């Protein structure tokens, strides 16, 4: 009971501290901007730990963060193997193939007005569908190994990427196009010097959306069959064995991989579209 009371006390004092920080005079500085969410996140972990210990929550319902952390480090080789299988082989290869194919298709579609009018509404429609449902089909076609996971990822990222790239290629103003015409510039100079650079913010938007989709696709596809490794496989079998500490460790890995993947793409975006108003300092 002591621990539960302690948890409540910590929660309340965190809140008072954060309100002080957020309304204090230095609230707009970078340090405070970073420390407020950090304090919040840390408090959640501490309160979680104390509540699990204080209330004696069984492992099969919720393991304590310290328990998850211990499992994370003791099972590091397995987790690394799973990450390789799901992220490096399945998600990443599918991401590259899918986004690359969508990019090339977008360039092609953009050249023909008829195709653009036809494919864009269809693409928008498909982008809203539960494409992850193609996973059982693709697993049957491409087998249990990473190839089928990559195929699911390709299908999942293709349309969001296509729609974003096509939209981006239309992003130029009439004046910018007229300028190109006054130079007597043909299709390729206009594409490489004007329309592709102008499309970059949109292309990166598609690439960023696709990072999350890629991981989801690769993990969920493993629920339909996989070799005896991979994050989705480990999650579903560990859930079956009620080894929730392992599930949580795997979720930590997924969260780290997901944010790292997104972060890398966002960093590249920052260096490519430094000129865009949203990126300027």
């Amino acid at each position, binding site marked *: 009971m002591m621990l539960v009371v302690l948890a409540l006390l910590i929660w309340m004092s965190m809140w008072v501290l954060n309100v002080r920080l957020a309304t204090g005079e230095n609230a707009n500085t970078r340090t405070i901007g970073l420390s407020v969410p950090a304090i919040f996140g840390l408090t959640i972990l501490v309160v979680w730990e104390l509540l699990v210990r204080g209330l004696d929550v069984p492992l099969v319902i919720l393991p304590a963060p310290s328990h998850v952390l211990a499992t994370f480090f003791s099972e590091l080789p397995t987790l690394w193997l799973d990450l390789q299988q799901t992220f490096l082989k399945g998600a990443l290869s599918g991401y590259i193939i899918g986004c690359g194919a969508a990019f090339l298709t977008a360039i092609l579609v953009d050249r023909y007005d008829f195709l653009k009018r036809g494919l864009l509404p269809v693409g928008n429609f498909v982008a809203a569908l539960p494409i992850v449902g193609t996973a059982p089909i693709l697993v049957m076609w491409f087998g249990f190994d990473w190839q089928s996971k990559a195929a699911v990822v390709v299908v999942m990222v293709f349309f969001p990427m296509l729609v974003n790239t096509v939209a981006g290629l239309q992003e130029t103003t009439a004046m910018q196009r007229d*300028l190109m*015409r006054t*130079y*007597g510039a043909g299709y390729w100079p206009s594409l490489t010097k004007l329309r592709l*650079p102008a499309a970059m913010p949109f292309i990166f938007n598609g690439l960023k959306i696709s990072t999350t989709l890629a991981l989801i696709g690769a993990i969920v596809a493993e629920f339909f069959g996989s070799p005896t490794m991979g994050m989705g496989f480990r999650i579903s079998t560990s859930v079956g064995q009620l080894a929730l500490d392992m599930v949580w460790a795997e979720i930590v890995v997924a969260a780290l991989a997901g944010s790292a993947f997104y972060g890398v793409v966002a960093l590249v975006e920052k260096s490519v*579209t430094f*000129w865009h108003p949203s990126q300027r300092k």
Partner: protein
Amino acid sequence: MAPNANSIVISANALDLTFQTADAPVHALKDVSLDISQGDFVSFIGPSGCGKTTFLRCIAGLETPTGGTLTVNGMTADEARRARAYGYVFQAAGLYPWRTIAGNIKLPLEIMGYSRAEQNDRVARVLDLVELSDFGAKFPWQLSGGMQQRASIARALAFDADILLMDEPFGALDEIVRDHLNEQLLALWARTNKTIAFVTHSIPEAVYLSTKIVVMSPRPGRITDVIESPLPKERPLDIRDSPEFIEIAHRVREGLRAGHEDD
């Protein structure tokens, strides 16, 4: 003076342009005839809808007239566009935000296939011409509006076109910056001997800059008056207080008013 000092570079004869819109056809240009000689500074002035910008775009080959003839350097406007006969300056600077100022000026040079060394030479030269030499490595969004517009003029000057088409280039700038750029433009014109066609809706600007002022009026877009300016080529800013200047400005204003009588 160059041997072809008085040769005609742009010649429009009975030009007509009708836009087909959803409700009714718009007669943007009607029976427009005008000759522009080498080295002229011609201003087009008139209320909005008078066709001054449309006429400039016809010269640039960006619009196709529906009647009459138009030659630029003895070619059709479209041939002249492909031969890169002119530099065009738009209302907004329209610099690419992802290129530096120098990179923006290089853009036409890259498209037209100049060598790397030649590109750098020319960029340095035109940056000097518009007094932006220290800003080549900056990005457009780091510069003021007036500096951006100067860079866009440099971009239009970078290749060897002897015609400069300018569509209200200083329209979005404040009066003080505009005065300064007008002075600079006159100096630049004197130094390069280019032929300049300049669209504006400011009477003082038109009178101060031009050797020839073309007054236009709307519905249908047409020329109502062409005024040859008696002002000397050397024009300090305070020439705008001289009686000659005021008299021409008065005539332009009369021409604009006459065009409005049918409203």
